[in-house]
Structure formats: structure tokens, C-alpha cells
């Protein structure tokens, strides 16, 4: 009922339905889980509760150290994501910027393409 105190001119106003939907979307799985709890049967069995490994008993712990490639992909993703996010404000104001904006962004992307080419040549983008 907090919404009743908020003015329709406040910046948060248009976002309130998203918050409301967050509550609904969170309540939905919780209710579903609670209803399920009433109906289903649950029998404890050590074999049944072990991790699936094609019928054998699980060998060791699954949480082994993972390949460094995932880390590398995440790193490259982060870098290019920052680049992409800069394109959004540029695209919005593009009609005011015109040719000047195109040249500036050409420079910006150009410098990054160098980095992209470097990563390509170094084999970072290969997954073998």
C-alpha cells in the first residue's frame, strides 16, 4: 500500500507495476511449491537421493575446478558488453549527431575491432 503515498510525477512511478509484478512472479512459484508439498508423497531413500550418474554410485565430488575457457569467455563478454552499452546512448542521440556521431562511433568501434582481431589471432576465440 506504499504506492498510495507516491506522487504520479515521481521518477519511480512508472516502475511500480514492475515491482508489483515482481511480487506476483515470486508468489507464483512459492504457492505452487506449497500446494505441491500438500499433495505429493515423499519417501526417503539414500540411493534415490544420490546424484545421477548413469546408475552407478557417484564418484567423487562434482564440483571440480572448471576449464579456464569459461573464465576467458566471461572476461571477453564483460569487455564487449561495456562497449555495447555505450552504443545505446549514442543510438538515441544519433539523429542530432549526424555525420559527426557516425565518425566518432567509427573511431570507437575501430579501436575495439583491433582488440577483437588480436583476441582472434591469439586463438582466444577458439574453443578446442
Amino acid at each position, binding site marked *: 500500500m*506504499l504506492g498510495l*503515498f*507516491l*506522487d504520479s510525477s*515521481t*521518477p*519511480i512511478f512508472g*516502475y511500480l507495476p514492475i515491482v508489483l509484478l515482481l511480487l506476483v512472479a515470486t508468489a507464483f512459484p512459492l504457492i505452487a511449491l506449497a500446494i505441491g508439498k500438500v499433495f505429493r508423497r515423499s519417501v526417503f531413500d539414500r540411493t534415490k537421493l544420490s546424484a545421477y550418474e548413469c546408475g552407478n554410485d557417484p564418484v567423487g565430488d562434482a*564440483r*571440480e*575446478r*572448471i576449464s*579456464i575457457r*569459461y*573464465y*576467458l569467455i*566471461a*572476461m*571477453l*563478454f*564483460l*569487455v564487449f*558488453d*561495456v*562497449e555495447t*552499452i*555505450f552504443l*545505446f*546512448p*549514442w543510438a*538515441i*542521440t544519433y539523429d*542530432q*549527431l549526424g555525420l*559527426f*556521431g557516425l565518425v*566518432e562511433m567509427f*573511431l*570507437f568501434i575501430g*579501436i*575495439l575491432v*583491433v*582488440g*577483437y582481431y*588480436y*583476441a582472434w*589471432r*591469439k*586463438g*582466444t576465440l*577458439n*574453443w*578446442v
Partner: protein
Amino acid sequence: MEKVFFIIIASLSVAAALSVVAQRNTLYSAFSLIGLFGCLAVAYITLQAHLIAAIQVIVYAGAIMVLFVFVIMLLNIREEELRVDRNRLLIFSVPLGGLLFGLIYFGLKNFKIDEIKGAPVGTSEAIGQGLFSKYLLPFEVTSILILLAIVGSVVLARREKDGDIEDIEDDEQVVKVSMAEKSKVEETKE
């Protein structure tokens, strides 16, 4: 009554931040941090900084934290390995924490809330116009910074034997090479 909203968001942020520090499991800490970023995004929206709020979630919660989570999984440190003598760390953490609070206190002592009135600076249009007029040079320099980050991450994660990978352009070729080697081995067996 925006204050009420702010207090809710602020207390949620502080709770999430405390949880980041207090959790034993690093993965739990990471997820508390994601929650904290979410709260901060809402705080930015209340300041009309819509684009910054979106960036907060997309870049920080969606990209940087993915990297964190991967690193945590990559290292896979068990909880028992993390048991360190907390009392010994207090020697460093208390003065450093005090210093930080001092900085924040003196930084904000003469700050008046009225000063930030005026046109909102965090909307997409404001940032777009700012980037290509007043902050054009910093913007272009940023691309060089990002370039350095790409080179850095490539160099950091390079394995020793990667030296010759440049010669092998295509993954298909690697498969072919290994197939050829395999058939050689089979020939010698025969």
C-alpha cells in the same frame, strides 16, 4: 513520501551489503552482491538515472558478477580452506574501515541535498548528449582502455602451449590433425 521508499531501499541495500561480508560461502556472498546491485538500480531510478540503473543491472549484475561466479567455480575453494584467523585480520580491517568512514564523513559533511536539483543527468538522452560533446575525449579514451582490457585478459589467461595456436586457424583443422595422428598410431600398431 518518497523518503519511505528510500528508507526501504536503503535498508535492503545495507542488509545485502552486510550479507556479502558475513557469508561464509563465497557463492552466497556473490549472490548477496547481485541483490545489492538490484537495490542500487532501484535507488538510481528514484534519482531519474534510468540508463545508469539499467547499466547497473546489465553490466554489474549481468556481466561482472558472471565473471565472479565463474572465478569462484574455477577456483572452487572449499569452506574449510577458507578458515582464517579472524582476530589477526582485525588489526588491518579496523583501521582501514575507520579510515573509510572518516573519508565518507568529511566528504559528505558540507554536502547539501539541494545541490543536486536541476535537469536529471542519468537519462539516456542526457548521457548521449554529454558523451558526444563535453566528454568526447574521455569517451574515445575509454575505447583504448577497453582495448587494453581485451589484451590484458587474453594475455592473462593464455596457456604456455598456446604459442603455436595461431598457425591452426580453424577448429576443423585441429580435428583433422588429431585424426591424422590417430591413424598414424593405428598404422604403427598394425
